[in-house]
């Protein structure tokens, strides 16, 4: 019984070698699976920090600049603009969107005891409202 003739041997050269391709494909697949679980998509909020409070308050325009202060009211931390207490991020966004003076930028003042999550939310709200610059000011508690 003849299973392979010379002629058939010649034809076999045309067939594609799949093993190496499969190796590489599996390797890439595993690589992407591993990296996908490693890295969560992170982005950035770029803020200018101002430690010297006098420079932060020296904006000279007719309208008041947006100054968001994190304060504690009735046991809860709230965003305060002027004398208004704003409890949530979405409400703060709405207020900032309608803010008349955006040219002077926005200032976020955070005392030491304030939760960082709210400071980040305040900066994000200012960025979302298209303020040209957002400054973060550490607030010294008396």
């Amino acid at each position: 019984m003849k299973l392979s003739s010379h002629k058939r041997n010649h034809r076999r050269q045309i067939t594609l070698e799949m093993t190496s391709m499969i190796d590489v494909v599996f390797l890439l697949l595993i690589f992407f699976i591993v990296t996908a679980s490693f890295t969560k998509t992170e982005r950035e909020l770029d803020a200018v920090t101002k430690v010297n409070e006098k420079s932060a308050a020296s904006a000279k325009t007719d309208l008041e600049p947006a100054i968001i202060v994190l304060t504690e009211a009735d046991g809860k931390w709230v965003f305060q603009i002027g004398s208004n207490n704003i409890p949530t991020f979405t409400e703060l966004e709405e207020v900032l969107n309608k803010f008349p003076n955006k040219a002077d930028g926005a200032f976020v003042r955070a005392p030491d005891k304030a939760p960082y999550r709210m400071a980040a939310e305040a900066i994000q709200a200012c960025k979302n409202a298209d303020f040209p610059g957002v400054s973060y000011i550490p607030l010294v508690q008396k």
Partner: protein
Amino acid sequence: MKLSKKRVQHTKGMDITPMIDIVFLLLIFFITVTQVSETNREKLELPKLQGAKDQKKSSLTVNIDKKGEIIVGGKPMQLADIAFLINKELEANGGDTGLITVVVRIDQRATCETPNALVKQLASQGISKVRLAVEVPG
């Protein structure tokens, strides 16, 4: 003209498939390792916000955990150590503070106490821009 013999000999040439396999394996291994070492990311619960910019390469990544402890490159550090690291970066850059980008990854459950102290420290060294890392929700 006989071509068949030559063709049979040709198939006996060096098989480079395993070599390619190993080369790819090493390549991917090093790509993964360098990515992990570059980011210096601690496991933190970052604020779930959209952010304003995509993350770029930074000269220093500072992690602050929920207890307010500073961690850089997997090691707990004090503010003085950060000041030392910044000074080293400044020396390497020729004293240009504009070239130094500091990414601060802060756990959202932390208070502003350590971030405030860090910001003051950085400002005293002439760095007035920080990049706060946030996690894109979803």
